[in-house]
């Protein structure tokens, strides 16, 4: 198992390098220039100097090599310095955002908690409601419960979040006035009152995203349960005199979870990437909206870095999914 993980991690290095190059090339092809962000009142010579300093005019390979060095050497060195008080990164330039003129990483680390709080809890809520729904729908296939569940699931993944988001916002925030329309990032949870406030402002985005997540996962759970429910070992379990509860929740569920858990693990990176639209609708200042803004103002280092972090997460969670698969299914051994 350990050798398997090490081998996969080593293999991930060329994969990620290739991905980073692809991202860099594609981002570089995009139209627009950071110059457009500099006010028109700035004289052209000054403007040219600013751009020169930002390194905008350097040839592509130079900029790519610089970014690689900054991402893989300078940034880790900086974090080691701030943790242990060393001076590894002294005099080294970190990745700098063209729009904020400050380190990209600081912005990203500031945004991630918002995303995790809203989108992460939506994913968790989605999983927690999807599993029992999937299990029960499969156990009572074609019952009224299953039909309603299938219908809601179809809605959940066929109606896009930018529509459900606006709809829910209209009903609950504007018509009923239960929840605020704008997410207040500065809110600090210190007491019961602010906690309730936090819950209220999270409610709508969590609802929208949880519906979408629960829709997919409950369908996976249901079909995986159905597939296992008709297996011979289920008959064996019944023939032993086990109760329906044990048969379904132990024998069938344990087998069904193998594929569902991997699906859930692979879906986790989408917490960061997939919620871009929802974050924008509810004005949650998360990593997704940071990416959208960076694209709008041609902040190439920011775009490059955020997209690359998504790529790392995707590769990492794919590995985690594979490891989980091996742990859950005794027939699979990675050695």
């Amino acid at each position: 198992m350990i050798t398997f993980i090490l081998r996969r991690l080593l293999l991930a290095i060329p994969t990620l390098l290739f991905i980073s190059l692809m991202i860099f090339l594609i981002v570089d092809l995009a139209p627009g220039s950071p110059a457009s962000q500099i006010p028109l009142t700035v004289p052209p010579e000054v403007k040219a100097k600013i751009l020169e300093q930002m390194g905008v005019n350097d040839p592509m390979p130079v900029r790519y090599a610089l970014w690689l060095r900054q991402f893989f050497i300078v940034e880790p060195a900086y974090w080691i310095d701030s943790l242990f008080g060393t001076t590894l990164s002294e005099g080294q330039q970190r990745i700098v955002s063209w729009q904020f003129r400050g380190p990209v990483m600081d912005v990203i680390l500031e945004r991630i908690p918002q995303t995790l709080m809203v989108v992460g809890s939506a994913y968790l809520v989605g999983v927690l409601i999807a599993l029992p729904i999937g299990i029960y729908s499969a156990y009572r296939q074609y019952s009224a419960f299953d039909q309603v569940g299938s219908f809601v699931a179809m809605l959940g993944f066929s109606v896009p979040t930018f529509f459900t988001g606006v709809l829910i916002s209209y009903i609950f925030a504007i018509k009923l006035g239960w929840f605020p329309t704008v997410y207040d990032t500065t809110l600090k949870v210190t007491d019961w009152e602010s906690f309730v406030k936090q819950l209220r402002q999270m409610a709508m985005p969590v609802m929208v995203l949880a519906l979408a997540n629960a829709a997919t996962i409950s369908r996976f759970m249901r079909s995986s349960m159905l597939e296992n429910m008709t297996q011979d070992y289920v008959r064996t379990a019944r023939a032993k005199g086990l109760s329906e509860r044990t048969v379904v929740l132990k024998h069938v569920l344990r087998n069904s979870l193998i594929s569902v858990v991997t699906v859930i693990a692979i879906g986790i990176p989408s917490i960061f990437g997939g919620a871009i639209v929802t974050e924008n609708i509810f004005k949650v200042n998360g990593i997704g909206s940071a990416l959208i803004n960076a694209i709008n103002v041609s902040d190439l280092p920011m775009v490059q870095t955020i997209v690359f972090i998504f790529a790392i997460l995707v590769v990492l969670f794919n590995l985690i999914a594979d490891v989980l698969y091996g742990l859950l299914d005794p027939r699979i051994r990675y050695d």
Partner: protein
Amino acid sequence: MPDGALPVLDVKDLKTVFRTRGGEVHAVNNVSFHLQPGELLGVVGESGSGKSVTMMSLIGLLPQPPADIRGGQVMLGDIDLRTAPAEVLRGVRGKRIGFVFQDPMTSLNPVFTVGSQIMEPLRLHMGMTKAQATERAVELLELVGIPDARKRLKSYPHQFSGGMRQRVMIAIALACDPEVLIADEPTTALDVTIQAQILELVKDLRKKLGMAIIWITHDLGVIAGIADRVMVMYGGQVVEQAPVKDLFARPQHPYTRALLKTVPHLTGARQARLQVIEGQPPILTAHPTACAFRARCTHRFERCDAENPLRRPVGHGHDVACHWVVNAEVAHA
């Protein structure tokens, strides 16, 4: 086998119907049989003759719906399994009646260790502690001839061969010392040498433990070597029932006769071709009102189309459901 003793299992007029899209399928039609303590009853018939469905109906292992057990009585001691509540049935399954199924490759749960699967009924029915159940599981694995039993408890089913898995299935079925073991084609999925080993094992276990066995198969050779009494099924009905020697020596029903002719012989003149029974077994969409075998029968006459024959005794412990046989008996007398 003692003839006068009370049967462990007494089935009367069991009737099972499947509701399908294409209408009803009458899979088991008024099947009656009994099983004496310590007896090995062989059940033969071709695919779709209702052998397995009958045995699954006994103990409520068929999913309902689509199955619907319409009538009959299944007495195990003094409990009627057909009308008993679900908890009572669960208490019987795995404890008083053990099951071994056809395909050992898929009948064990792949994600649990063999040990935990053997211990499950022990802990449930016998209320054993984990330690007691472990000891008993080791004993059971040794009983079914698995070497290095204690170590193998921690193995998963995929680490066993087909024959070994069937031994594990037998160990599970025997875990709680059942009065009845129902073996549904337990050797069909195994190759011939392994088949012989499993047969030897069952014979041996029967001697040691003395439980009654119902052995479902379509292999007449297996039946001849192992059974005390044989029940031949066709079209969801028992068409003939006799002690094993009697059945092979004096088969009565045209279907049984035809079935025995299909067995190739090693001695004697070589036949040009193997015998077959022409035609297909029927799919009964209604309760049979005529003989189910009439379409393939060489002795068919008017009465076969008009009336479904009932089983009548033709010898000691030998009965048969056939108008032609009964007519012939009457003519003799």
